[in-house]
């Protein structure tokens, strides 16, 4: 019967295992000490950012190194609207995404109109991001190089601030992550997904099949930019202080993409795996060594190792291990229905 077979499928480890993991993560967050909760939030945030980056770079193959600009535009837009006009950061988030999308369109049109690729694209996106950073450094109304301090208010969902416990931040971050995963899965199975991947595989052939590669590359950049901006607003509300050096530097662009590269570009789980690895290293080395520096030494070494040994990311290993675990788990229905 169709009804029972559906339930049977849900009871096979392939489905219930990730569900259990998700519920475990949610419950665990309720008991985690503040530092670990912070690490968890960072992991989720950078997973989110890595997936947002992936939507442009993993799927169309156009690799940009300037996403910090979109992050920063999101952070500054919502913060400015909040500080100067008392607009709720939730609404500010949407405006942030709109401005980031606009700048994404500018960057996209510039880069793809001139058919930049490979290292030229990398340097161009860096330059485009640096220009934004310098603009904000010089923008006195936006705090210039000193940045903006957000007013601290008692816990409030409207004001998007929580202090007695940071668990709401974790849930919000998780919600963002689930949202972007949903967007990504929908995208991959849609017309856009086909267009993006065809552009990555062979742009010339895609054009010959009637695909306007310029338009879709720009669309990918715009979507990626808007999503990244949401992360910027979240970060602003989490840290309650933003400045060009903290939300727009080149190193942030690197941090955003490194998870996706280490985990596996162009895959769905890759950026998450990579974010887990990188953020765990960052937070724990920083905490136990005390001084800044070692975390990036380790991160840098990992970058070199990944580039040399596993440029496609560690996802294959992880997938193999995951499948082994799934294979060992019992199927509650009694028989393996995949």
């Amino acid at each position, binding site marked *: 019967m169709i009804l029972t077979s559906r339930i049977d499928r849900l009871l096979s480890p392939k489905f219930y295992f990730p569900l259990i993991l998700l519920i475990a993560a949610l419950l665990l967050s309720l008991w985690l000490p503040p530092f670990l909760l912070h690490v968890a939030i960072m992991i989720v945030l950078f997973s989110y950012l890595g997936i947002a980056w992936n939507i442009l770079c993993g799927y169309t193959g156009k690799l940009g190194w300037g996403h910090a600009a979109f992050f920063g535009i999101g952070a500054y837009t919502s913060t400015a609207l909040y500080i100067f006009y008392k607009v709720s950061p939730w609404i500010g988030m949407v405006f942030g995404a709109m401005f980031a999308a606009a700048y994404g369109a500018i960057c996209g049109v510039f880069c793809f109109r001139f058919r930049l690729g490979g290292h030229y694209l990398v340097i161009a996106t860096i330059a485009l991001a640096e220009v934004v950073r310098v603009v904000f450094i010089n923008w006195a109304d936006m705090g210039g190089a000193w940045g903006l301090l957000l007013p601290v208010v008692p816990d409030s969902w409207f004001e998007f601030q929580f202090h007695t416990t940071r668990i709401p931040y974790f849930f919000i971050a998780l919600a963002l992550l689930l949202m972007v995963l949903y967007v990504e899965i929908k995208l991959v199975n849609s017309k856009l997904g*086909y*267009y993006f991947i065809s552009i990555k595989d062979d742009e010339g*052939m895609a054009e*010959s*099949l*009637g695909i306007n590669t310029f338009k879709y590359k720009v669309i990918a950049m715009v979507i990626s930019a808007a999503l990244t901006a949401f992360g910027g607003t979240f970060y602003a509300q989490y840290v309650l202080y933003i400045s060009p050096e903290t939300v727009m530097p080149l190193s942030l662009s690197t941090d955003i993409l490194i998870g996706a590269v280490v985990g596996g570009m162009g895959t769905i789980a890759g950026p998450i795996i990579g974010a887990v690895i990188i953020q765990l290293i960052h937070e724990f080395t920083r905490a136990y060594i005390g001084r800044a520096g070692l975390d990036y030494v380790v991160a840098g070494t990992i970058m070199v190792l990944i580039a040399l040994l596993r440029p496609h990311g560690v996802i294959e290993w992880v997938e193999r291990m995951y499948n082994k675990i799934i294979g060992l788990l019992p199927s509650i229905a009694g028989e393996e229905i995949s």
Partner: protein
Amino acid sequence: MRILEVKNLTKRFGGLIALNNVSLSVEKGEILGLIGPNGAGKTTLFNCITGFYRPDSGDIIFDGQNITKLTPHDIAIRGIARTFQAVKAFQSMTILESVTTGALCRAKNLEEAKRRAVKTLEFFGLLEKKGIPTHGLTIVDQKRLGLASALATEPKLLLLDEVVAGLNPVEMEEVINLLKRIRDLGVTLFVVEHLMHLIMSIADRVIVLHHGEKIAEGKTAEVATDEKVIEAYLGERFIA
């Protein structure tokens, strides 16, 4: 009725003249052959027609419209599809996905594109292989896949660039039959070939290029015995 007209087309690369004042026309429903020794400008001509190159002078008229300055995707949407000499395929996709990408050109949505892609795969006899990833195919099958994807865009005119290169005689027969069936669907074919055999067995008319210039044009049998053509091929492999 002329479906494609090329008028006084010239294309230079630096100091090299790849196409020199070439004019030709393609009649609707025919199979037109384009032959010439290596470097004659055949692929350059295709690239100009399909918008990958911008010609330096001249016009290209398709179905009554001047398409000379259009982008490749605009031209594809108007109804010209092509295959490539080098194997070009979407390595991350399966066969069905590749052909679906082509079908998206005309289909209103993804579901319809998939259905049309399945029909196209049936036509090509590739249906059982539909879930196989492209990188797992032989070169021959990848070329067939390229042709299937191009056909999925439901073109009025199909440009084929050396579609039988590297095939053995049996495979070549299959391709010849396939091309005839495509023509029967109503698609006009413009076929570039290096080997006379294919042109002789399939083309109604033939145009010969040499050093970027048209040196002969006419019914296949006449052109094959044309002195200028034979001279151009001297030293080249000429398989009649």
